């Protein structure tokens, strides 16, 4: 089972099995990760609520069927889809712009990039709460600024349709998420750009190549893998958006900003219906795994040919 450095000694002469080193970490994962996952898979096949003290009743795939057929669940999924589309569009757009602007080296580039990373690193709870202050409909500085300049006030947390075709409250959530996650994509793209061999960059400078050629023949091939990685990571995380929505709109008004993870949270800890909550979680997991493979195959295929 073990090869490579088979001759490996704990004390002079005693053979050490590498699994001994892995065991402690594996135990903690077993108890607090693997076991709970199996348990929650079990729950998803039961009618179970901790509040009304009855013993869990086995109901087979009922939870899954009820979730798949409930218009409420589909509405939340569709809303999450729209959120995903707009947030990825904004995030990748700004990230591409910033990373291309940072193409040439200049003094202080590293510090500027680090400062740009701060929104990603601070707690989403803190930044979302401050956005709530900034976009406050009557006292917030954003509306004061808009009123003084354009003479209009926008109800950022209302159901009103914004020019983009989505309600303002959802637009605000998209903007907060974009503010938090754009640095992540920017950083990966810049990592892709910095993997371009330096003599190739210098050759393009000495050849005084037009920027469009530099982009198409030099930058794009090197950032393509990074775009793929960023897309996959962002897709996984976007489905788990919870903290900022909880503080910004609490899913409201009504259910306009109740994305899938907020919906599952409410199923579990407001309606105390653990069965459906776990079933819905596993359905979401299936979607994520399916979409990630599609991305991997599509993008890596593009990569290999």
């Amino acid at each position, binding site marked *: 089972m073990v090869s490579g*450095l088979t001759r490996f000694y704990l004390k002079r002469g005693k053979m050490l099995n590498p699994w001994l080193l892995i065991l402690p970490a594996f135990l903690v994962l077993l108890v607090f990760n693997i076991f709970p996952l199996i348990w929650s898979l079990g729950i998803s096949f039961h009618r179970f609520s901790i509040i009304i003290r009855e013993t869990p009743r086995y109901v087979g795939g009922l939870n899954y069927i009820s979730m798949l057929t409930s218009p409420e669940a589909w509405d939340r999924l569709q809303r999450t889809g729209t959120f995903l589309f707009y947030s990825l569009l904004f995030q990748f757009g700004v990230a591409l712009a910033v990373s291309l602007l940072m193409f040439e080296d200049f003094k202080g580039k590293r510090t500027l990039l680090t400062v740009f990373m701060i*929104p990603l*690193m*601070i707690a989403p*709870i803190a930044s979302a709460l401050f956005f*709530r202050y900034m976009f406050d409909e009557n006292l917030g500085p954003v509306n004061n600024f808009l009123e003084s300049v354009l003479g209009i006030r926008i109800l950022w947390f209302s159901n009103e349709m914004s020019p983009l075709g989505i309600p303002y409250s959802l637009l605000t959530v998209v903007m907060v998420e974009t503010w938090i996650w754009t640095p992540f994509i920017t950083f990966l793209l810049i*990592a892709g750009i910095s993997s371009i061999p330096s003599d190739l960059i210098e050759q393009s400078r000495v050849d005084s190549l037009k920027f469009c050629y530099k982009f198409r023949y030099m930058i794009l091939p090197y950032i393509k893998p990074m775009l793929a990685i960023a897309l996959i990571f962002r897709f996984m995380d976007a489905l788990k958006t919870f903290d900022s929505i909880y503080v910004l709109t609490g899913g409201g008004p009504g259910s306009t900003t109740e994305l899938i993870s907020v919906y599952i949270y409410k199923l579990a800890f407001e309606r105390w219906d653990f069965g459906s909550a*776990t079933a819905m979680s596993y359905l979401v997991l299936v979607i994520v795994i399916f979409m990630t493979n599609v991305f991997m195959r599509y993008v890596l295929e593009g990569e290999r040919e």
Partner: protein
Amino acid sequence: MRDYRKATRFFKLRKYLKLGVLIAIVLVYLLPIYGMFNLAFRPRAEMFSGFFVLTQPTLENFVEAYEYGAYSAIVNSVIITVGGVGLALTLSVLASYAFSRFNVKGKNLLMFYILSTRMMPPITLIIPIFIMYYTIGLKGTYLGLILVYGMMALPLSVWMTKSFIDDVPKDIDEAAIIDGHSTMYILFKIVLPMVAPGVAASAAFAAITIWNEFLFALLLSGIDTKPTSVLLSSIRGERGFNWGRVAAIEVIYIIPIIILVFWLQKHMLRGLTFGTVRR
């Protein structure tokens, strides 16, 4: 005799223009953080008078924040983070050395499993742990939170530490084996000192993840063990609350992170991508 002056001037102009636009974007981007700091030092009187106004900075809000219980929330956050990182680090150092040096049969399976923890909607984990803690009385205790966060930070630190240990050529281990050293000597006296900065960086990343976490804390922490993220979220409910005090709490909450970010510049890429991408 060729005249370069005109072309040079035009070239320089374009370069500084690009730089100007970039700096403008970054400044606008960081406006909210500036606003946060500005609001935190503003007296109550000037609360709603414009975004940039700061005539006489005061520490009023920080005092009120202290009375509001922010101090104990920060202390809780520190205890939970240090505990979680400590647990995750000790476990991951041993495991990542084994993963890096041996092609253990189950390695790829375990590696994929660790990556999948990022795919998994957290609720699937919280419900069973919530029930478990509820029944065995771990709910609302520091130990409970530290164990959960230890588990959460483990995948990140295992992968990141492994990527640093992979950078150390295997020949060094083999040279030490020929010298006759034991595994523990090689790990703790030779390999770890070489990757110390890397291990510190993975610890810092684990710390940031735990410090900022909200959902697990919301459900598993008790009244006197709730960290800052839960304290901030509870403010949502109150009507007409004092934004100055909120900004003060947020400032205390994010300063340690900003310090860590500047210290982590070099290893940022590894941290963000779980060690999968290294420059």
